[in-house]
């Protein structure tokens, strides 16, 4: 009986674990950004360097979201022809930041630094995919440990737990 109970409980837990690990625990509706932003347009068509906007990637743990002022440096000379461009302008005029929905996240117990990965010669696309071909940026498939380790293994990087767990 006890064994059966443990088995059942384990099954429930596994189910929840699986949901969580694939990211499906977050409802897709949460991924709706306040205004539609196209990486395909900015990084693809316009060919803007990733680090022009995500400017902290080479010097910090985080790549950073661009400040509104940075967006505005280009957008002040672009006509607000689409509803999304007008939306952006409204945010700017009202001195309001855009609350982007966070798509890429790592749990609290993981240490990750953009800076050192770029220094090791990785490109942004190695982990983030070819965003220059994505009109809508999806939630990253998953940054699971196995996925990180495969790359660490291939490249001869450290596989010690405490390299990435804090």
């Amino acid at each position: 009986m006890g064994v059966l109970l443990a088995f059942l409980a384990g099954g429930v837990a596994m189910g929840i674990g699986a949901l969580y690990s694939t990211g499906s625990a977050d409802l897709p509706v949460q991924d709706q950004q306040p205004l539609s932003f196209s990486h395909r347009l900015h990084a693809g068509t316009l060919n803007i360097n990733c680090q022009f906007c995500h400017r902290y990637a080479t010097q910090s743990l985080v790549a950073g979201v661009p400040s509104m002022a940075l967006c505005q440096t280009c957008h002040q000379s672009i006509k607000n022809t689409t509803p999304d461009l007008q939306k952006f302008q409204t945010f700017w005029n009202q001195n309001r930041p855009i609350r982007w929905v966070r798509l890429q996240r790592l749990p609290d117990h993981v240490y990750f630094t953009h800076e050192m990965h770029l220094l090791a010669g990785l490109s942004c696309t190695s982990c983030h995919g070819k965003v220059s071909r994505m009109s809508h940026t999806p939630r990253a498939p998953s940054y699971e440990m196995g996925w990180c380790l495969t790359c660490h293994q291939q490249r001869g990087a450290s596989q010690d737990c405490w390299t990435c767990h804090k």
Partner: protein
Amino acid sequence: MDLYRRTLFKLLGLTAAGTALPGCEREVHNLVPYLLPDEDIVPGVANWYASTCQECEAGCGIIVRVMEGRAKKIEGNPQHPLNEGKLCARGHAALQGLYNPDRIQGPLKREGRRGEGRFRPISWEEGLSEWVEQLHSHARTSAMITRPVTGTLASLFTTVINSISGRLIFYESTGERTVKKANYLSFNRRELPYYDLAHSDYLLSFGTPFLEHWLSPVSFGVAYGKFRQGRPMARGRFIQVEPRLSLTAANADRWIPIRPGTEGLLVMGIGQILMREGLTRLASSQQASLQRTFTSFSLDDISAATEVSPDVITKLAHELSSANAPLIMGGGPAAAHTNGTETLMLINALNMLIGAIGRRGGLQWAEPPDSPVETVQPELSSEQMLTALVQEFEEGSRSLLHLYLADPLFTLPPSLKFERVLKQAGFIVSFSPFFDDSTSMADLILPDHHPLESWKDHFQADTIAVPSWNLSQPVVRPLYDTRAIGDVWVEAAHRLGGSLGEQVPWNTFQDMMKTRWEAVLPNHHPPLSFETRWRNALQQGGWWPVDVPRQQISPDMPSITYELPEFLGNISDFPFYCYPYPSLGLSDGRGANRPWLQELPDPLTTGMWGTWIELNPTTAKALGINPGDQVRVTSEYGSIEASALLFPGLHPDMIAIPLGQGHRAYGRYARGRGVNPMMLLGPKFDRQSGSLATGGTRVRVERLKGGSKLVMLDQSKQHPVLQRMQEMGGVS
């Protein structure tokens, strides 16, 4: 994945499945960009800002780690000459002052009766007008009790208070006023010497808790490390004389217990032997005046009174004379009696006899800096002077009370009747950022910023090799609707107008500071603009010369009239001496609202989160008291009850109790916790300095029914490593 395993255990433990997603509570779900990028801020990268620690009066240089606008960690400023990058427990806990959940978040006005604790939030405009109105209606009857601030803020307070014919009182319960008084009487110097412990090879300390809370504990700690192990061939020897084995004494090579209040006699005994045997390092002509001072008691009488054998006294004298660079320090319990200043003056004279004055490894006084800005640190008021203030409020010659980071209601014994000031005052304004006991009696609260949110400067000349001007700068944006006290007083000066307005022409306190700093900062060749020099000073944490010449000290010492200590309470009813000592973490109580300090185990007893009463084990046995029993300590002035703790390093006739707890207010961590041993003390003062003789009240102890809880770290440790090792053969 890991989550699966832990979830499994949680479910097996029949925990609700809703908790199966750990670690998400603090998850950031949105990415919010800065509107305008702050050039200084790189998300994920820390900035460090230099400032000055204001947790005690030592004035250590600090650097603060700031990430995304939040202060994360404080460390010592490695460039600062005082603390050389080091910091004490209390310095670290300044962050829990900044982020304290019980901070006062904006101006408040009293509702209901005074002391009832009901306040109504008001606007700054309303608060300022109310205060200025009160200043007008209480013309010439103002008093201000502030912690001993220095620099621009002291100058501003002085200017404003003088212009309204008020009284300005710098008060600090742990201000070591006796040490300052003795220093002034012996050497005619206002600033305390630099104790060159690092280069001494023999330290004889009479009670100074210099590794705990005395004057400048971090700089003493730095020097102590060098004293012991900083030189390849020499290890300093250290003897501590005091009735209770303090943390400092625990570090000594020898602890010599002494009958409380008789330290001066022991000093005399040592001096006698040095003179008799011709072992002094002072010209005999200069020695003559000291001869009488040191020989007014016979060695046998001294030995009987101090309970220190003549052999031990002789040994101390011989050790002092054979050391290369001996140093003597005095303070703490040695100065806690009616003869405190006299005892310390005797110690000063003994330092003169052994040639420690002005010597490397001895006492040195830096030449006061030649500066157009005043370099005198404000004189501290004694407890006796505060009792005079009580009288003035009762007579009505004082009526408007201002309080700034001083909590006399808590730190003074009730026998000094400070409560009457708070009852009699026509109006009470507090600038404290916390509801300390006194502030909760205020009529109007105009809360100051936390030191990490505001501009200040400090002049430091005590116990330092080179005098330093230290800067504090805001390292984080103010969390609440508080205002820097400097700005509030500048604004008040404008509103009061007249000549005061002309004396305070600046728009902000920062402007006032910068004007003074134009005079402080030297302009070397090639000349730099003031803005450049100012920026450099901010980055460094202030300004200090590389070195300064030492002052010459006259070897002529004043004669000293030594008297034996007096005590309140007759010996038959109150058989025990009582010594309330500042706690390592909580000090006189101001640390009690920081949970890190509450949970910091006292190193000697491992007690935390409360008060305990220390008894010698033999004494306790005679009284039938076991560890953990609830006991009552009673004096002629009051009584307190707490848990008994057997303390092997305590004079059998003494009861010792840590200070810091027993607050009536001061936030959730402090309120109603433990007891305040100040309740016991009567109005007995050091004769020369007027400081409260904290060891001057006698008490009795009785066991009450039942036990009482005292939290100790020991309880959790079944096998402390040290105990096991000791049983296995010992660690020296």
